[in-house]
């Protein structure tokens, strides 16, 4: 099986980055953030996005220093095979775990809200073929398809945010949480962030001309702004009962629907969730496949897809598949994997950049 990974433009990179930063933070995350950080929960994504921005900035630096090299090759040159393979094993597990959590949350959401009688098998039927197809057909196709859907994503997101403002009607109790609570919440939910490492592993496929970096950073900024706004609107709408409403973007619309009498306006948010889930699952699978390919470079790509699908189906059916398990898994196990994106990769990249600078100075 041949995977056609052609290069993607700055716009496509920006849109993929937007999806990575935005998609998995608008459903259950705001409600979970409220549990620890109360009304100050909106600070958590701000703090964690600062880290994420740091990661994107490091990507910018390494991409400008090594414009057409593969990340795995740069790592091999600097740190040898052992470090490279170890890191890629961790990245592989990271993307797999995140895909598992994302699927689990989306499945629970749709089963609770609409398809009450539908089983997991139907959902797997609906998701896996499309996600596999997107991942196999190549990064450029994902980028182009995302470009096609991007106006829809932006329009629905803006619509949800604007409508959500009508739901804010109370004067809530401020300054409930201390800064310690906010940082505790940051650590607990750090695993929802750090997806930008996707850019590192595909850095050789990303073609960004000089002066086009602002496009990438703008998309990242918009995604961050959207996440912070949605979290704030959700928490200010539900205030003290935010913990009782697990699906933020849907609940924002639902609140306006129920108290404003605007029909089934909440369905619009479901469209957004389903589009984003497809793309993000495809990106996670793509990350998994690329990591697999680096570790087992001599075997066909079909094995990476098969491995993902088999382990995914087994894990979904026997390990998670209910919201509380998913949340425990997301809050207790996954944060450790964030070391990969917020410690290992930045540390390795910073050292590489410093070495490169020293070499350039010597010349």
């Amino acid at each position: 099986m041949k995977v056609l990974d052609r290069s993607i433009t700055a716009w496509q990179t920006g849109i993929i980055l937007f999806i990575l930063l935005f998609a998995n933070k608008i459903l259950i995350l705001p409600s979970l953030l409220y549990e620890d950080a109360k009304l100050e929960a909106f600070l958590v994504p701000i703090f964690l996005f600062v880290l994420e921005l740091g990661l994107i900035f490091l990507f910018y630096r390494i991409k400008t220093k090594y414009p057409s090299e593969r990340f795995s090759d740069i790592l091999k040159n600097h740190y040898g095979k052992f470090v490279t393979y170890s890191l890629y094993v961790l990245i592989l597990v990271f993307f797999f775990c995140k895909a598992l959590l994302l699927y689990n949350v989306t499945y629970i959401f749709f089963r609770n809200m609409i398809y009450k009688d539908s089983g997991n098998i139907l959902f797997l039927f609906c998701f896996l073929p499309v996600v596999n197809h997107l991942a196999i057909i190549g990064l450029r196709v994902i980028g182009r398809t995302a470009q096609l859907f991007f106006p829809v994503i932006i329009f629905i997101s803006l619509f949800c945010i604007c409508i959500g403002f009508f739901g804010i009607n109370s004067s809530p109790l401020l300054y409930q949480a201390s800064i310690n609570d906010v940082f505790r919440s940051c650590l607990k939910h750090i695993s929802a962030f750090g997806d930008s490492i996707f850019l590192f592993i595909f850095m050789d496929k990303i073609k960004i001309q000089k002066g086009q970096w602002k496009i990438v950073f703008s998309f990242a900024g918009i995604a961050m702004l959207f996440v912070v706004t949605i979290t704030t609107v959700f928490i200010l709408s539900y205030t003290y009962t935010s913990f009782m409403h697990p699906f933020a973007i849907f609940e924002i619309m639902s609140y306006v629907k129920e108290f404003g009498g605007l029909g089934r306006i909440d369905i619009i948010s479901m469209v957004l969730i389903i589009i984003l889930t497809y793309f993000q699952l495809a990106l996670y699978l793509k990350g998994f496949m690329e990591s697999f390919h680096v570790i087992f470079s001599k075997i066909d790509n079909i094995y990476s897809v098969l491995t993902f699908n088999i382990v995914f189906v087994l894990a979904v059916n026997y390990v998670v598949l209910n919201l509380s398990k998913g949340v425990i898994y997301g809050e207790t196990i996954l944060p450790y994997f964030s070391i990969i994106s917020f410690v290992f990769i930045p540390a390795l990249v910073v050292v590489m950049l410093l070495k490169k600078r020293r070499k350039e100075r010597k010349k």
Partner: protein
Amino acid sequence: MKHFVVNLFKTPMFLIFALITLIYALPALGKQAELSRYAVVTAIGIDNVEEENLENPENKFEVSLLTFIPIAEQTFTETYKVISAQGRSISEAMDLAGLHIGREIGLSHVKSVIMNTDLLKDDVSKFLDYLSRSKNMAASTKLLATDSKAKDFLNAVQKLNSESSIKVSEVINFNTNYIYSSDSSFETFFKGMFGPTKVSLVPFLTINDTEGGISVASGGEQSGGQESSNGGGQNSSTTSGQNEEIVNSGDTLIFKDGKLKTMLTGFDMKKINLVRGDYTTGSIEVKDYTDKIFDHANLIFEIFDKSVQYKVKYENGTPIFYINAQMTLALSEVENGDGMVEKNVEFFVVDQKCINALENKIRRSVADAIGIMRDNQTDIVDFYTFMHNSDKKAFNNFLDSLEDREDYLNRIVFKIGVDILSK
């Protein structure tokens, strides 16, 4: 054509789509219609099980469901039935009610939940837990309480007319917007309960005959769909031919931390709402007013507009809470001691004496409202949030200085300012 078919089979996504269609779409055609599977519940009543009605000694709750059962008819009349069942928990009673009716209980259309006051002696959250967890029930579902059996209440509701439950929830909506500003949805109830004051309000409706309040009368002539089933075939206490009224006098039950604290009358709530800025309609009565025009008259002024400003200052650690209400009033009714007023009151100019009388009246009402809240240690207006947000440190110091932190209302000095504008 051959080329097209070959291309189709070369496209894996088409094959997968065809496979999903075959596996799921075709069997779906043979499925029973949802209308035949679900009973559409529009109102839920919850009662304590009385000892003489016990079917099982472990049963605690009786759940009654005002249910719309779709039946093919030539007319557009919707048929409602009250179905009830007992159980050790609400969920068990719900399941049994489903068994009685032979359908799944659909809660998506529930507009109101009626609780019997006997239940309210315990923590309300115990039996609201099931309903609050239900993903199908809307957060805007109204909660209300009655002193009669919730089942009897639903029977009275059922007899109003085909869309009666909606009307009852509209009566409660009216509370929220116009008369006594006490929204009573699930969401608001839990927001109050989990909020800083822990206070929630639930409207109290009766089905007694009464002269006051807003009443939704139910005639007893309609007997269709009056059947009641609670497993033992117990009949409803509402009999055909009997007239009943569902009465909303604005009475409100006050809960603190999910437990019933007290019941306030509609008049008490009216006074409390004078302190709240979000309530801008209503009337104020000045009794026994005499001047050049009026002789021992009762003057009723309608509130056109109202704004209430709060300010808090601390003096030696004690908070001084300023409530400044600015109201625009218009004379809407005169009950004169000596009969009709000759002069046209349309052009009545509110003089200083009348303004003073109004200000005194409003001050007294606000003081009464604060007294009610102090007596019951229930911060219905939510002074807590305002003081916390104004100066968290000073407020926390004040709370720390109290022996009982819950008793903060009694330690605050309230100063009331009233500014009247006439229209």
